């Protein structure tokens, strides 16, 4: 955390809505003397300066160099500490579209703002005690979450589903550790009933850690989405399928082979999972230089995709080229029997019949895509998706496994217990608590010891 920090009082600005075409865009500014600074490029300046927290002021942002207008805006004023960052904040609501956002940002820069770094608003919120560490991570992901489902996952962490789960594992280990420590802290021949180490508790904790760790991939997938490439010979129907999945005519569909010369991409969601759909030029050797370049690019995209839909035109059947590709392919590839409405033959083993004309097989295909990424199990409410959490859980699991191994080998427990302690500490890092005193607490409430 420490390394990336600029001065947390600086005035900073950044668009709060994605770059691109939309009706409205929001630019957020915050920092020391933020309201005064915005008002130097805002008309009517005084109204903004005097605005109370929570007020909206309509006006114009202008370029201070030549006085030319940048955009008509509504300025929402938040006064410290009642703002997201805990500092004075102005949110400027301007017209959508890259040119107007650019102009407003330029004006703000002239007024002394600098571009905010990634996560800098949340960092300030954190530094000013507005959010805690896990919340800060989750907020960041709420913002960058690509779909509603991802949003839910990020939100869940705020509400503590993960905290509860981790704490539960931690408590079970603390229980074992305190019994162990107690036994260790009294001479062996002066303890009447030394506590046994509960192996079932340990292995149950191990299982829970493992399954929690597995959710990292899920969390990550919902966070970042997957890359799904459409492959197959030219004219196999890739662009048509692309459009079908996208439900809008974006790719040019044509009967002339090789129309999609470069590639197209678009974000869609399947069952909440963000999917970057990549339409490629097809895999046909070509003399046309532009097209040849497109094919080379296609190969690269297919190579880097998380999942590939390989289309074979059902009216034409499998070619030698198709067979060759499919033979090499892995479980990363879903074979699709396209144009199923005019099929010349039954789909070969493993092929999914789909028609973009009749919509046949679309739902099956979507399900197949989702399941080949996430499996068929229902998703857990507690999902980890930050690198830090994953590291902590991995450390906890490794330490626990070392401990279980050591107990099996009869390694003296005072040495081995350091591993159990490390597991507990690593979990404590996620839930954000110190634990050494927990252990002593537990030791004496449960056991009768002492001369």
């Amino acid at each position: 955390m420490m390394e990336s920090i600029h001065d947390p009082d600086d005035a900073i600005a950044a668009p709060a809505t994605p770059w691109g075409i939309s009706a409205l865009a929001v630019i957020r500014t915050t920092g020391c003397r933020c309201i005064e600074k915005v008002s130097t490029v805002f008309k009517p300046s005084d109204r903004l300066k005097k605005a109370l927290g929570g007020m909206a002021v309509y006006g114009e942002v202008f370029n201070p160099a030549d006085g030319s207008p940048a955009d008509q805006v509504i300025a929402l004023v938040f006064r410290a500490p009642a703002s997201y960052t805990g500092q004075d904040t102005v949110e400027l609501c301007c017209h959508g579209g890259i040119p107007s956002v650019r102009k407003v940002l330029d004006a703000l820069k002239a007024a002394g703002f600098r571009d905010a770094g990634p996560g800098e608003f949340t960092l300030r919120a954190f530094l000013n005690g507005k959010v805690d560490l896990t919340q800060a991570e989750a907020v960041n992901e709420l913002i960058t979450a690509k779909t509603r489902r991802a949003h839910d996952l990020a939100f869940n962490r705020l509400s503590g589903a993960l905290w509860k789960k981790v704490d539960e594992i931690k408590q079970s280990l603390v229980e074992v550790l305190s019994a162990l420590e107690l036994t260790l802290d009294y001479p062996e021949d002066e303890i009447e009933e030394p506590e046994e180490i509960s192996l079932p508790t340990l292995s149950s904790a191990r299982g829970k850690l493992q399954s929690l760790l597995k959710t990292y991939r899920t969390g990550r997938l919902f966070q970042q989405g997957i890359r799904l490439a459409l492959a197959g010979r030219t004219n196999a129907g890739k662009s048509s399928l692309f459009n079908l999945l996208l439900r809008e005519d974006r790719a040019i569909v044509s009967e002339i082979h090789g129309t999609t010369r470069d590639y197209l991409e678009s974000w869609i969601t399947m069952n909440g999972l963000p999917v970057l759909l990549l339409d490629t030029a097809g895999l046909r050797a070509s003399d046309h230089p532009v097209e040849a370049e497109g094919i080379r690019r296609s190969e690269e995209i297919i190579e880097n995709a998380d999942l590939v839909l390989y289309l074979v035109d059902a009216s034409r059947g499998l070619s030698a080229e198709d067979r060759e590709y499919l033979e090499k392919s892995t479980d990363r590839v879903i074979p699709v029997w396209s144009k199923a409405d005019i099929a010349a033959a039954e789909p070969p083993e493993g092929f999914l019949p789909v028609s973009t004309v009749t919509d046949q097989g679309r739902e099956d295909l979507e399900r197949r895509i989702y399941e080949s990424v996430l499996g068929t199990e229902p998703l857990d409410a507690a999902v980890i998706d930050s690198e830090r959490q994953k590291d902590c859980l991995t450390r906890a699991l490794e330490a626990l496994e070392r401990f279980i191994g050591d107990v099996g080998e009869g390694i003296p427990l005072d040495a081995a217990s350091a591993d159990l302690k490390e597991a507990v500490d690593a979990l404590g890092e996620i839930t954000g608590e110190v634990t050494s005193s927990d252990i002593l607490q537990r030791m004496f409430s449960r056991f009768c010891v002492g001369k």
Partner: protein
Amino acid sequence: MDYDALVIGGGHAGIEAALALARLGYSTLLVTQSLDAIGRLSCNPSIGGLSKGNIVREIDALGGEMARLIDRVMIQFRILNLRRGPAVRAFRAQADKFSYSRLAKETLEHQKDLHLFQDTVTDLLLDSSGRVVQGVKTERGNTISARTVVLTTGTFMEGMIFIGEHTAPSGRLGEPAALGLGTALRNLGFTVGRLKTGTPARAAGSSLDYDKMEEQPGDPEILAFSFSGAPVNRPNLPCYITYTNEETHRIIRENIHRSPLYGGKIVGKGPRYCPSIEDKVVRFPDRPRHQVFVEPEGLGTDEVYLNGISSSLPEEVQEKFLRTLPGLENLRIFRPGYAVEYDYLDPRQLFPSLETKRIKGLYVAGQTNGTSGYEEAACQGLMAGINAALALNGREPLILSRAEAYTGVLIDDLVTLGTEEPYRMFTSRAEYRLCLRHDTADLRLTGKGYRVGLQSSEAMERMEKKRQSLEEIRELLKQRTLKEGEIPGLPEGQGGKKLEVLLRNPQVSIADVLPLLPEVRDFSREILECVETDIKYEGYIKRQEQQVRRFEKLESIRIPPDFDYQPLEGMSAESKEKLRLIRPVSLGQASRISGVRSSDIAVLMVLLARRPK
């Protein structure tokens, strides 16, 4: 000024504090209520045990006295937990109580620059600002001035003892309480609380039937706590074990309302880990029996100590339930068990040097800081004495880290977390206990004692020589290869292994390989076993050392003493309040304050990094 330094109280803390100050060349006066009670073992007749034995050896490495005292008066020696791992292995000795106390007094008397004086301190003298200590006032009206004062009042400050319905202002049975000082400290604005502790009855040994008990003998070989190398040649007396039973418990239960604790007379909190028999019976009703250890109080006395059965029930009830124990049927009580309640200072009012934040030059150590135990008291006394001396000399205090000494763990816990019950050391309080083995205390701390001026150059040479020996033996074990069949009784296929590798096997001990290495036969048992432990636990020790390096990062980020938490936006009012109260010296210490969240530490880290250096 009459003296450079004045120490209040001649208990285990006071002894070490006074000796350290005088040995560092400061004219020192020890004022205590009774010169005959110097170094008295108030409770159990033993020194050492898990983690406590390590503390005794830490005291020795730094140049303190406790190890040398017990080495000369022990009447039984044991190494505990030999079959367990190295971190929980420890020395413990039974002490001849009377000799311990007499030897302590004699040692003080012979110390140059140290004077003893019998009186009771009732108040402190301060300068006109009210923030610097200048001496003390006593019960008999003496005023004694000193540049620094170490307060070690044990269980005596406003002490009150309880035996059933009987109560009396005492610090120990038969010794008057020290009255007045507690009130004076309250008036100065200190937070003073009440704690309680208890002790069991002492009985006539000749009234017991040892045939009905299990014998617990000492080890045949006696080792010294002290690293000085002085030989220990002491008698070896056994202890005995007997058990309570349902009848014992019934009598206690029937009379529980007559206990001052359960009757509500005592407000101070007692230790959970050293419960009275009343506590044990009430809190663990399902336990059919509890162990009781019968320990001699010394040579030349018939008195025995009944360890594990401390009680403050009325005397006749004590006698009645004690007589239900096998071997104790005809027991005659010499002194009854009792509980004592006393004033202690919330140790969060201290810097890690043990100097009070409120009054400059005033140091506090021992039971007064909420601890219990001789060793815990002694190590604090030593550190307070050292730091008071360093301050007189204008030098920085000596603060031991949690990774280098149990003493460091103890003081850090006290000043950072405070305590609500008598604090006793446990190995589990130390995060890095594999690094705090008793047999490495000299390697860890002799140098520090030497730099302070308490350790001799001979001690340094001894320590260096040990270090060399460890390396030498290690080198030999690395080089020498085992021939098949050379050690009888080993499973086949061990031939060709280096001895060092062989020693990692839990079945093989250093004694097994000694016949193959005539070169090392002359090294002491302690040194050989130290090498053995280093090898056997190398992986664990290495990992712990790595953790220590991580831990030291936060420790090394210092928080300036004048750091102002008030303007910090990112912190809850509660955290700020706690940080202002504790005034942690490092980010590491701050991170251990209870209730300060990790996000608060992150905020602090950012701000400290931003501060102009």
